[in-house]
């Protein structure tokens, strides 16, 4: 039993040393994998964001910029797959800026649409007002005519 223990203890020490050696050797690899996972996660998040933005862009005002974003996200993915993490992160940063640009373009387009709608409504109101003014003018003329007819 003691022998077994000794043997076992030796084995354990050897095993432990091997594990430690493996761990130490694989540390940079693990860190690298985490980095790529993070990049992948960020790409996924941005892709989802791009889909959301595309959904928001009803007027397709930001279609070219969205396409560019998707292209860059594809490029980032390719870089990530090539384990070029630094380049991938640089592209991702640009993608984030591009996504912000898309958001602002969409917001600007929405506001323009809103302005156009309001202006159309205003124009309609003015047109209706002009029409009513004309009707009022005609009615006043008719009234004067009737006044003249009644006073006869």
């Amino acid at each position, binding site marked *: 039993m003691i022998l077994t223990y000794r043997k076992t203890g030796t084995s354990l020490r050897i095993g432990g040393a091997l594990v430690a050696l493996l761990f130490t050797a694989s540390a940079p690899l693990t860190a690298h994998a985490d980095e790529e996972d993070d990049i992948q996660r960020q790409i996924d998040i941005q892709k989802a964001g791009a889909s959301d933005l595309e959904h928001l862009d009803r007027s397709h005002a930001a279609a070219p*910029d969205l396409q560019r974003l998707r292209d860059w996200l594809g490029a980032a993915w390719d870089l990530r797959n090539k384990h070029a993490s630094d380049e991938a992160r*640089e592209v991702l940063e*640009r993608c984030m*800026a*591009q996504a*912000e*640009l898309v958001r*602002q*373009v969409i*917001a*600007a387009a929405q*506001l*323009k649409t*809103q*302005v156009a709608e*309001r*202006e159309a*409504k*205003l124009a309609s*109101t*003015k047109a*209706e*007002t002009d029409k*009513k*003014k004309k*009707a*009022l003018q005609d*009615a*006043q003329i*008719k*009234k004067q005519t*009737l*006044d003249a*007819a*009644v006073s006869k």
Partner: protein
Amino acid sequence: MRSVSSRFIRWLAAPPALALWLGACATPPKPTALVSYEDLKRDPGMEDARRRFPDLVGSSDQYGDRATKEWESNNLEDSTRAALLAEIKLKTALARNSQEQSKARLQSVTADQTKADETLASVDKDLASVTEQIKLMEKNVQAEADKKRLTEQLANDQKRANDERDKLSQQLATEEKRAAAQLALRTADTVEAGKYAAAEYGAASSMLAKADAEIKQGNWQAAQASLDVAKGRADRAAELSKPSYEQAAQATQNKARDEALARDAAALPGVAVRIERRGELQRLVIAIQDLFGRSQTTLQPGRDDALEPVARLISKYPSYPVQVVGHTDNRGKPGELIALSQARAQSVFSSLVSKGVEARRLMVSGQGPNEPIADNKSGPGRAKNSRVEIIFLYH
């Protein structure tokens, strides 16, 4: 020979080498991203964006400068990356600037909309008011028109009624005048105006016919005038005819009466009746014999009754003047005989008066033997001559 070839080869290789050297030293073409960025910088909203978003535009400028430097340093990839970021920042600034402009415009449009709504509401209100007034006025005008129409209709109805009434009145008046004219003609007929006033009667008939024609044409006024003329002519015809007709009628009547008298006289018992003309007068002579005894002047007993029918006859025909004339035969002196005949006539007169005959109708006389009706030589002749005659005189 070798040196010449070597020099020739060097001379040939010199230009490409120079070109390669110059190419290595020259600035490379601008990256597309940098060109796009520089184009974007010329956007009209650029200055506005810089004023509103200086951080973003400043950051873009920094990236742009970097891109230019990297390009000038021939680091095209870095230049492209920097230019892309510069473009993104600038585009973002421009988008946000656009948003601000849109917001401002939206605010302005909203304010304008409020004013336009107010204006529209005001115009609507005015229009509704005027429209309401027009409706009321139109109702008034319509009411006036209805009133006028009804008044005109009423006037027309009234006029039609008046016309109808006038027409009926004219018709009635015409009918009355026609009846009057016809009556006048019938009246003229009663005096035989067609016979005694042919011209006037013919004119009246013609005018009546003319009036009938005018009535058919509805020319009431003319018809009335014609009927007035017809009536006048008919009246005139009647007036003209009346004397002639009455005269003729009287003659006829008298003749009939005379004939009746003659019939009644002939029916008397115990008397002789004859009719004779003396001058213009007709004489119905009733000779009564045997009333008196010889030379007597009073009626024989019982003979007074023989005068009763005669008295009734005289009373029945009261318009005739009556003579009571006594006659004798020729036996005796003429003067005495005349006196005798007068006395006898007076006796008969008295008897008749006593029987109800008006005395003033009777004229008494005695002719003696002057008017014998038979031969005095014989007894019967003398008896016939000795008589009293009741004589009805007429034309």
